[in-house]
Structure formats: C-alpha cells, structure tokens
C-alpha cells in the first residue's frame, strides 16, 4: 500500500488519474474508497474534503447520497466537472475549487457526513486542526466523519520498515512533482481532539494506513 506515494505524479494527468492510481495500487485505493462509502448511510448529504476527480463521490451517489465536494487542484476539479457532465450527476454531486481554509464559509449543522481519503496526509498540522474543527461545525448533531489516510505505524519496528520502504518512493515522487505526502502521527487523536466520538478505527497495510469512523457528539461541545 505504498503506491499512494505516487499519487502526486498521477495527479499531473487528471483524466487518467483514477485508472492509473487503481493500476499502481492494484485496486487498493478504489477498495479504500469503497470501504469509506459503505460507512455512509444511504441518502445522506455528504461533504467531501479533497474530492479529486470524484471517484468516491460517484460511489456515494450510487448510494443515493448528495455530495458537495471541494478540491484545491484546478485540474482535478476540472476533471470532476467532466465526470459530472458525462455521467449526468449535476443534481447529486457539486464541486468547487477550494482548500480546507475555505471551510469556514460552509453552513453550520448542514451535512449528515464528512468524508476524506488521502487528503489529510497532504495538510499541515494547522490545516488539519482547522479542517476537523470546521467538519465538526458543519455536521449535524450525531453526524458522521470518515477519514482514510496514510498514518505512522504504532510500533518502532514497523515505523523503521515503513520509512525505509517509503523513502525511495518519496524521492522519486518529489523528483517528478516537487510534492510529497506526510503520514499522520495521530489521526485518531486529532479527530477525537476536535470533539468527535471515535466509533471505529481500522488499521491496515502494515499498520501504515487507517480508516477512522467517528460521530459528532450530541452535547454540542463543538467549537462554533
């Protein structure tokens, strides 16, 4: 599951991004998105942080959800819009070009669920904190957040193995794109810290990948 390191290279060609990402990850990235989609109740109003070309959004639409997505990359947004046009999704999936810093402009208590895959590992600590704070704000009481991303393994041995395998892949990616991702040290802790109740944490791929499912607490401890 180290292939997501190459994500930034594949992003250079948004049209073939999903197909290539699927190929290099041997279908695992798609599987992660399917797992995230399965967590979302049918018919939900969903916010997707960093929706890319809209692969996950399309899966959610198949589950009768309405998805509002945003992405910082203009080419990804362009590609998502082409998908909306081609698959006639415009009543079910909307996308805007925006970073997480724009989340303060979203309405509060509005969404049933917030999802994000392979985005938080690209954010700075401040951006992550900001995104989680506003995810909590925009969710309805009891709303669901599902985040799947690259994380730092828990044991020292695994951390070392992870770094050794990852380093050359990061170097290649950086050489090609000037970008890289950063595994998250404590994803679950960060989500909990933003006032969510953790429902489930699934770690996989040599403990280097995690999917965290959490709910917004009913008591309204969220920061407004």
């Amino acid at each position, binding site marked *: 599951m180290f292939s997501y390191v190459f994500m930034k290279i594949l992003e250079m060609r948004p049209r073939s991004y999903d197909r290539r990402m699927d190929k290099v990850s041997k279908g695992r990235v798609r599987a992660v998105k399917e797992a995230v989609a399965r967590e979302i109740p049918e018919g939900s109003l969903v916010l997707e942080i960093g929706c890319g070309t809209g692969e996950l959004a399309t899966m959610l639409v198949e589950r009768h959800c309405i998805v509002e997505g945003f992405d*910082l990359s203009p080419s990804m947004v362009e590609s998502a819009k082409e998908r909306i046009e081609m698959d006639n999704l415009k009543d079910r999936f909307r996308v805007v070009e925006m*970073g*997480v*810093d724009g989340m*303060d402009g979203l309405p509060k208590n509005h969404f049933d669920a917030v999802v994000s895959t392979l985005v938080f590992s690209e954010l*700075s*600590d*401040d*951006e992550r*904190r*900001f995104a989680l704070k506003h995810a909590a704000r925009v969710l309805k009481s009891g709303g669901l957040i599902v985040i799947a991303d690259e994380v730092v393994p828990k044991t020292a041995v695994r951390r070392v193995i992870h770094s050794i395998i990852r380093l050359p892949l990061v170097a290649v990616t*950086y*050489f*090609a*794109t*000037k*970008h890289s991702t950063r595994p998250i040290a404590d994803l679950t802790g960060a989500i909990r810290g933003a006032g969510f109740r953790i429902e489930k944490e699934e770690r996989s791929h040599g403990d280097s990948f995690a999917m965290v499912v959490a709910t917004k607490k009913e008591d309204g401890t969220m920061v407004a």
Partner: protein
Amino acid sequence: MSFLKTFWGLLFRLFPCPTKTGLRRIGSPGPESPVLVTCNFDLTVKRLTKILRGLNIWLLVADSKGINVWCAAGGEELNSHSVVSIVKTSEIAAKVNHRTLILPPLGASGINAADVKSQTGWKIKWGPVRAKDIPRFIEDNFKSDVNMKRVTYDLKERLDTALGSLFPFYLVGGIGFLLFARHLLMGYLVSGAIAFVVYFSLCPWIPGKNGFRKAIFLDVILVGILITTESFFGREDNVFRVYLIFAMIIIPLYGLELGGMASTMPSDLDPFLARLGIGRIGNVAFAGTIRTELLNGQRELSYKRELCKGCKSCAEICPQGVWNMDDSKRAVLDHREACTACRACLVQCEEGAIQAPKVKA
C-alpha cells in the same frame, strides 16, 4: 538534528529543507504587534528568527514545500493559497487588533496580493528584500527605501547563494574522482574551491555580459598562465598544470549555471538546455513556462500605459528597479534590460497593463 538541517540548508539549497509551518512568537507579541509571513525553508526561518530577536513579532511560517521564498515563489510552491491558508488556519486574527500582513517581496512572483486581500480581508504590505532591514522597516512605519527593495548580491550574498546552489555538483564530481580517478581528486578539489572563490568574488568586475562570457575571459587568462608556467618549468615538471586545466573546465560551469550573479540571477544553462531540446529534468522546467520563455526570448515584457491605474505594485516589488512611477503617477518601464524574468510585476498587475506576449517569429 537542528545543526544538520542548517548544514543541509546551507550546502544543499537545491533540495527542500522544510520546517514546521504555523504561527511563531518572536519576543512577546501583543495585539498591536506586526504580523510577518515567511516560507517554511528551515534556514530562512532560523536566520529570520535570529535577526528579529529583540522585537515583538507574530511570524506566520507558510507552506512553501520547504523551499526558500524566492525559489518557491518562482516555482509557485509559495502562492496566494499558502498565505491565505496560514492566515486562516493559524487563526492569527483572534490574536491581533489590526489586519496588516507584511509579506516578503521576493514572494511576489507567486503570491497575488489582491487575491490574498480579497480572500482574507487583510491589507498587504511588502516588506524589505533582506531580513536585516526588517527592524528599520518596522521602525519607519512599514516603509522601505529604494535600497531595501533591490536585490544586489554583495560578496557575502554571492558566496552564500553560489555555495548553496553548486555544492551538490561539486560533491558529486568529488565522489566521481574518488571512485574512478583518485590521482586527480586533489587537483579537482583544490581547483574547484579556488576557482569558486575567485569567480564569485570578482564576478561583477570580470568583463563579459553574461556568466559564460565572463568565464571565457577568465579561461583566456588561465591559458596565458598555463603557457607562461609551461615555458618556465617545462611541460613535465609543471605542477600547476593539472590545477590550471581543472580550473579552465570548472569556471565555465560556474559561469554557465549562475550567470552574472552581480545583479542578474538567471542561469545561462536554462536557455542553453532549452535550445538543445531539453525542456525538463525531473521537476525543473527549462522551457514552456512564462519565465523560461521570457528568458529564452520567446516572450517579451509589454506595458500598456493607458491601462495603468497607478497602484505602484510593480515599482514596489520589482527587485531590479525595472519599473518606476512618473509625475502623473503611472508606471514607466524604465530599465527593461535589468529584468530577470521573475514575473512579480505580471502577477501583481491587476489591470493587465503589464503582460508578456509571445514574440512573433
């Protein structure tokens, strides 16, 4: 670790060296203290923190992918979004009463001041080019004089920049000789180091309009020295021979890579590679971008005076003094020849008065 990062930042500046982004306190800043923005290149933040010691400042370290301000802005790693993001996600607004951001002017190639203003509501002031002028800039109520806006490259800056850019190549060469031609290693190391100091110390005064021609001029002198020493010592006994020949090869490489250095930064190597049809090596582009096309002569800076509304942005941020303001408060393209294609004026001009159209063949 911190020492290693400083060392890396000093000698391997071609590679990123990130430090943590976010809000940092310098001294004991309060609600009225200035808010400065910089990149997240480790060495920059360290040097800045040292220079600002004694002042009370909020420092926002924005994400520039671990690259220094000028390079990151040129490559658009430091952009409007980096600044908007750090202003909003650091929540600095809750800590100060004012709404004025001081941005590094060499970031103007990547950060669009109008975009940042419209997305954050903060007013933008461009600070001085060199960190050491920041205390005076703050004291003078956020005003820079002409010298504080220009990139000059004095001796220390020349050596610092050249060392950061060239050391990896020097090292690779050294390893090559160590492995395959150890008897030449000493000659390479000594000549490389001496040629480095001589070339970059003297380069503003060496005749030649670009780095490569300056290097050729030095090579001609070296050939003269070689012939003279050969005639004194005889070819076999000339101990200087290997050093001189190495210097003759190395100096044009220095000249080719770093151009004139004195006041013009663009490398002569980029247009040269573009002419050879090499448009890109890894993540570095030599062709196909506005900057490279300006440098390669495929585009030209153009100015439509009738569109200028006199915002002074171009004159504020041009590190070369290409733009000035005339008596009717409109911009004048005064020193086209000094332009180094940093694109800062193109990015900042809201009115479209400054453009870089393709030159018709």
